[in-house]
Every structure is written in structure tokens, then in C-alpha cells.
């Protein structure tokens, strides 16, 4: 991953924009933004973003590579799709945000302790292991993400909901140990490996 990570970008040159177009999912849309700001105004989490989507798009065009890729902003997206619905230029903003986050992650530039990133990693691992999500493992993992003490506190806070789910048969505690994966686990692993290879080749990541 080394080479691409140190790529030099000059301010207000198209290099970074072109990089985004080539490597980021739906990145070819970034140039179509007309800077109206409707996305930023529509985002329910807007005030919490350091750089709302409108600004991210401008930063990409301004060649601010590091600032964009190291940003926490796109990790804030909750996929509510308000921006996509409202964008007068019909940019798939939600997808671009996820695409940027993913790209930053692949480059190793994404903020390490970002909770969304950590959860996403956990989810991916959980899912791909058996080809099917193990819900109880995932929730326990999420609770205890920041250590045992906070984990207990989080689980305790959720106990009523947990018990309710247990009563109505929505939660199987045995699943923790007795998880049924999908039939052809190895097939899934092979498929994912192949997909990864293709993506890496296309986007120039070292294998």
C-alpha cells in the first residue's frame, strides 16, 4: 500500500480528484457537485460533522488529500439517504461517503479509533467467518469493544431489552457457542478472496 499512500498532491490540481474518481466507489460524481449545500443542510447529523459533504467535495477538488482521507467526517454517515434524495444534481452522496471511508481505511489513513470503523471491521469479521452474522457475538463484541468495565455497564443498560428479546424468542443465548454458519463456508471465503483480488488489482493496492 506504500506507494499510493505517499502520493503527492498539489493544491487545487486535479490529481486527487482523479485519484478519487479512479479508486472511490461513485467517486466520478464528485466533480458534478455544484456546491449548493443542500446535502449539508439536510444531514440530520450535520452539525456533528467536521466537514459536511459539500465541504468534502470541495476539499477533494482543492487537492486536500490528507485532510479528507484522515477525516472522521464521512464515518459519521448513518445512511439515512436524505442527501441523496435532496441533491439537485442527483449525486449518490451516501455511497460516496462510504466509498471515501472505505478507501481511507484501505490506505490505512482512516482514524484508528473511529468507532464506526471499528464496528465495521468487527461486523465484517463476524460475517465473513461463517458467511452468516452471529448476532449475539456481534452485540457482545460491540459492548466490550472498549474493555470489560464499560462492556458490563453497556450490557447492564440494555438488559431489559435483552430479556424482552429472550422472552419473545428473538435472542438465542446458545447461539454464542452453537452458531450455524452457511453451508459452503469455504466457497464464500474463496469468493471474497477473489473479489478482493480483483478490487486490489483495479485500484492498484498491493496484494
Amino acid at each position, binding site marked *: 500500500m506504500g506507494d499510493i499512500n505517499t502520493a503527492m498532491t*498539489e*493544491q*487545487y*490540481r*486535479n490529481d486527487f*480528484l482523479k485519484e478519487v474518481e479512479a479508486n472511490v466507489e461513485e467517486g466520478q460524481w464528485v*466533480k*458534478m457537485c*455544484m*456546491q449548493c449545500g443542500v446535502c449539508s443542510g439536510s444531514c440530520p447529523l450535520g452539525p456533528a460533522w467536521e466537514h459536511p459533504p*459539500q*465541504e468534502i467535495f*470541495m*476539499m477533494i*477538488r*482543492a487537492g*486536500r488529500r490528507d485532510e479528507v482521507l484522515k477525516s472522521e467526517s464521512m464515518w459519521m454517515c448513518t445512511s439515512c439517504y436524505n442527501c441523496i434524495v435532496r441533491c439537485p*444534481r442527483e449525486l449518490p452522496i451516501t455511497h460516496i461517503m462510504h466509498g471515501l471511508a472505505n478507501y481511507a481505511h484501505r490506505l490505512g489513513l482512516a482514524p484508528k479509533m473511529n468507532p464506526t470503523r471499528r464496528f465495521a471491521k468487527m461486523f465484517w469479521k463476524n460475517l465473513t467467518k461463517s458467511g452468516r452474522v452471529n448476532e449475539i457475538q456481534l452485540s457482545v463484541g460491540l459492548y466490550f469493544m472498549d474493555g470489560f468495565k464499560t462492556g458490563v455497564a453497556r450490557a447492564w443498560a440494555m438488559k431489559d431489552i435483552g430479556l424482552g428479546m429472550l422472552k419473545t424468542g428473538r435472542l438465542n443465548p446458545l447461539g454464542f457457542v452453537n452458531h450455524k454458519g452457511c453451508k459452503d463456508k469455504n466457497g464464500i471465503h474463496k469468493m471474497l478472496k477473489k473479489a478482493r483480488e480483483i478490487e486490489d488489482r483495479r485500484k492498484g493496492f498491493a496484494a
Partner: protein
Amino acid sequence: MADMKIGAYVCQGCGLGERLDTKALTLVAQKEGKAHVVREHEFLCNGQGVAMIQKDIDEGVNRVVIGACSRRAKAEAFSFENVAVARVNLREQVIWSQPATEEARELTQEMAADYMRMGCAEAKKVQAPIPNPEHGTNRRVLVVGGGITGMTAALEAARAGYDVLLVEKTGALGGFMAKLHKRIPYREPFADPQATGVEALAAAVAQESRITVFLNSTTTRTSGAPGRFSVDITTESGQTQTENVGAIVMASGFTPYDAAKLPEFGYGKSQNVVDQAGLEALARAAAAKGEPMRRPSDGKDIKSVVFVQCAGQRDATGTHLKYCSGHCCNTSMKQAMYFKEQNPDIDTAIIYTDLRTPGNGEDFYRSAQRKGVIFTKGKVASVDVNSSGAATVHFHDLILDDKAATMKDVDLVVLATGQVPNSGVNIDIPAGAEDVDVAKAAEQSVSVLNLTYRQGPDVPQLRYGFTDSHFICFPYETRRTGIYTAGPVRRPMDIAQAVEDATGAALKAIQAVENAGLGRAAHPRSGDLSYPTFRREGCTQCKRCTVECPFGAIDEDEQRYPQFNESRCRRCGTCMGACPVRVISFENYSVDSVGSQIKAVDVPDEFSEKPRILLLACENDAYPALDMAGVSGHTSSAFIRTIPVRCLGSVNMIWITDALNSGYDGVMMMGCRHGDEYQCHFVKGSELASYRMSKIDDTLKNLNLEKDRVRLLEVAIADIKRVPELINDYAAKIQEIGMSPFKGF
């Protein structure tokens, strides 16, 4: 007049019969109005009613008073040949403006009776107008300027069957468009620059047999009036020939704002900074050689181009142009595409503050984005060019709020400077000095039309040197009848808009020659046959009419009396309002015709608690608003007596003093908005009225009357709810200050 015979008719339709005692109204007309024939009819505007009136006319009635609906309704039904008609508005402004209650009945009837008296008084003083005898019948159209606007206007007029003289200052047709490499697209899919097609257009003009082209020529003297203009066309070598034309289209175009005034952007310091016109020249030169565009300073490959929008435009400091020229955003996109066509890897950035893409520019904008033109919202502070020719653009990034943003190693900087109109001499003494464009000062010394009009050699300007046109209602009209400006001399615009403008102006020119040929007025009193005349022996040669005519219609004759040039006149009556000795009148509208209506009103005594308020309402906006208020059921004071006037500019002070002297308790005037955002149909009428009325305080003081006895108001045609409120407010005010002491004298 000895053989004057008045017929007065009162309609009973539309509820008039139920709400009013129409019999009593006919008696008023007969006894007080001295009508010879009076009749009621249950449905006056139907065939039977009209036939009844016509029969009386055939038997000798020559003045008709119609007590029915507003003059704005049923105009066709109640138009009788060679007979003056006075319309008494009993419907909209009497029964519909008053509550339909038993208590209101008495006041409503009094109101109707007064209006009948006024109608009869007016009928005595007016005559059916005959066409002016001075009209000319020349149907040729002169087009000044051979650019896209001028060529389009010439072709449109020619194809409509009118002969055209096309005068072009330079040695070839084409104007600014001939200097362009390509033009902003004007056809689907609005994605790529298109060929200008200027050669084909110039060839079409040359081939058109109805068009005579004068190259290297200017108009050195223009006199006359619509239908009979006389124009001297002088060639560069000094040969002059005089031609007669019926109307003129002035399409003198624009000059790009001088980029040399923008040294902060590096213009003049480096060849690598050009204006948009400069870039077109580069593109044309490169295309002619079949080569790509190169850096002007050293011929190196171009890798990066920056477009600076609003360079010397929309300037708040007052140094440069204050306005937006409208075309430049689209033009910069087009020019950025030249580079993208040459090599898609060339970085092209457009730095803008507000992207404005008129017409189908939004599609063009998207196309530019698709091609990779980068748009950066920012304000450029300066451009430095180093010794090797590379430029650095310093700007404030407005999205990222980075005041120190820079673009480095830029090979070419293009400045989007604006359009400065070639409008000739500014004949008005500028009202606000800050509005005078410094850049224009030099060019202003050269006149375009060289009119021999008393008010000056060119058409009046509104702001920033653009010619005055009533752009809400009559965009092509100037303040010189029969002369139409089109293209960027009227307002900043691009080619597509100029083509539309030229077509409109050509049609207006055709209308003008046709109207002039029949001795009729042009807009807004289109078709009006009346024209101003003056009583020579009464004239004191004060020149106020010649100075104040908003259309420069009035010249001076050899004996220094006003010469009206009827075909240039728009019939607003501003001269009539201006005349201190009241010698100017129209056959169907005069100081006397309105004055006698004022005097015809029955003014009750001081103790009656029935004040009388005169309302002089502009017939273009205020009077329709009053009508529509009635239609919408908004009631207002029953003490108001309304007289429509052609324009507040035609209001003569004598009407005000007469009204106050004869016991009216207040005088209201309603006219259109004036000033820079004026809505006055006669441009200056309401402004002049407000100026004149600002002097009324002295008169009121002399009469020992309160200031509030006279009130001037600006209303728009849409003020349907506001107008009755204004009336009621004023009626309440009059109630407060009490009755006029002048009653019964």
C-alpha cells in the same frame, strides 16, 4: 360648440338597477348635466342597448355619456365612430365599492349622481380625435450596427417585407461575434461550443435584396419623427448621403471592459493573462494554424488554465463595473472546453462567486463538469506572474473559507471582464454621481445617432450607460419613439438573447412605422389618435414642456415656440401637466376637461359631515387596481370622487388648487413607482408629478390649509387590497383634520 348634443344613458344591468335610482340619475344628467337625450336601459351593452345609442347618434347626438361599468370594460360595445364618449363608472367604483346595505343607499346614490355630473361635464369638453396631420409614411427601417443583433434585426424586418438600411461602422459585418472562435451552444443538447455561423449570417444579409448595407459608415445626423426620420449616413472618407426612414433599430453593441484597469490580476504585466476576448483571439489564431493553443509568453504547452469570473464586475467598491454581464460564466465554461477539447488533461479551473448560467446554461454547466472543468467558489485577490511566465492565483476559497488559497504554476489566466454598452452620449445630467461609470466617460463623447432633438443627441440611459427601456412592460422601447435599442446596448446579454432582442426590436420598429403612417400613438396608448396642441398666443416660451417631455418629442421652432413632433409623442400629457399657463391640450383630454369634472361635483356644506375627496388616479395602474378592488368586493369611503388621468405627469397644479378652492377636503393622487426601479408607463411622469407636488406645501400655506390636504401615493396594479385601505386611511385623516374652510365660496 353650437351644435353640441349630449346623450346620457344609464344602465340597469349588473345590479345597477337594484342598487341605484337610475331614473334620478337620468334627471341629474338632464337638469344639471344639460343632456339633450337621457335614457335608461336594462342591459345597455347588449345589441339592443347599443343600437338605441346608435340611433340617437344618427339623429344628432354627438357626445355620449354612458353610466354603466368602468371604461376598462365593454370598450368595444361602447365605441362609436366620430363621437366623443364619456364613461361613468357606476359599477366597479360606485355600487361594487360600497356596501349593499340600506344605510349605505343614500351615499351610494350621491356618489353616482356626482359621477353622472362629472361625465356630462367631461362630455362637453372633449371631442373625438382625428389623426395628426404631421404623420409620415416612410416604411423603411434603419439598423445601426452590423453585429449579430443588427444583422438579425435587419433580416427579420426584411423578411417581414420592409426595406432595411444597415449601417456598420467597421469594414465588415459580424461585430463582436466575428471575433469569437465558437459560441455558447444554443441547441440541444447544450453540451459543446458551437460554430458561430456568423459568415453564413453575413452572407444572408448581403444576399437579401431588401437590405442595403453601408460599411465603414456612421449616422452623423438624425432628425424627424417616426415615419419621417431623415438620416445622414457618412462614410469614413467623409461622403454623406441623406436617407429617409420610418423607424430605427439601434444595435450598437458593447465594448469589453478594459482589462488594463485590473493590474492586480496581472493584466498588462504578462502575456499569460488575457481577457475573454483575448482568449477568443488565441483560439482563433491557433485554429487557423491547426495547432493547439500555447502559452503566449513562450509557446510552451498549456497544462493549467484559471478563469477569473467577475473580474472588474459586480464591484462594490465603485472602481469597476457594478453589474453582472450575464454571459461571462457561460463564456468561461465554453473557453474551458476549448482546452478540454485540445487535451482533457489540461487542468481548467473556474473561480466564481456566484455561477449564473442564463438560458440553457445549466445543461452547459453540467456538461463542463462532466468534461472535468473544475469550479471553485472563491474570490480572486491577485494574480502574480513570475519571470518564467508561470502565474500564481491568490484567492479566498469561499467554501473552505481559506483566505490564503492559491493555485500555482498556472500557464494561462483568463479574466472575465464585463460588457460596457456603446450607448453614445449620456444626455441626462446624472442624478447620482457614483452611478456614472468612469470607464464610460471617454466613449461618451461620441454620439451614435446624432439626433437633432432638443434634449440631446442620443437615447436616454437608465443606469451604467445602458439605454432606458421599460423592462417590466415594454423592454424594447426607448424614450425616443420609433427608435428601438436591442442587444447589449440595452442590457448585458449573450448571443442567444441578442437574437431574441433583435427580433423583438425589428417587430417594434415595424409596429412604429405602421402606427406612424396612420397618425396613431405607439405604446402604451397604442392606437390613440389624439395629440397635443397648444394655444400659441398664450405660450410664454418657458420651455418646460420641451425639457420635461420624457420622450424628447418637443423641439423648438424658429420662433422659439414648442414644436410637438406628434409622431414622437406618446400622449401621456406630461407637457400639459407642466405648462404653467395651461395652453397645451388634447382633443379628448385637457386641463379644462378634467377641471370641469372637478367643478361639477356637488360639494355639500361644512355642516353636512360629508367631505369630498378628489382622487386623481393613473389610468395605467391605479385605476385598474381601483376597479379590481370593486370587483373583489373591497369597499371604501363613499366620499371619494375619482378621475382617471393618463399619467400623474399630466396632472396640472391648477386642478389641485381649483379643487381645494372649491371646497374639496382633500386631494389624493395615485401613480406608479418612480426612481431607478420605476414602473411609470411614461418613464418620468410619476417622478415629475412627485417633484411638482413637493412644491405644493407653499400653495397650501398660502391657502392656510393643512399639509395633509394633498397626498401623493405610489401604487401598483396588483395593490387591489391596499388601494381601498389607502382611501379609507386618507378619509379617516380628513375626518381628523376636519372639513375644509373653503366650502360655499
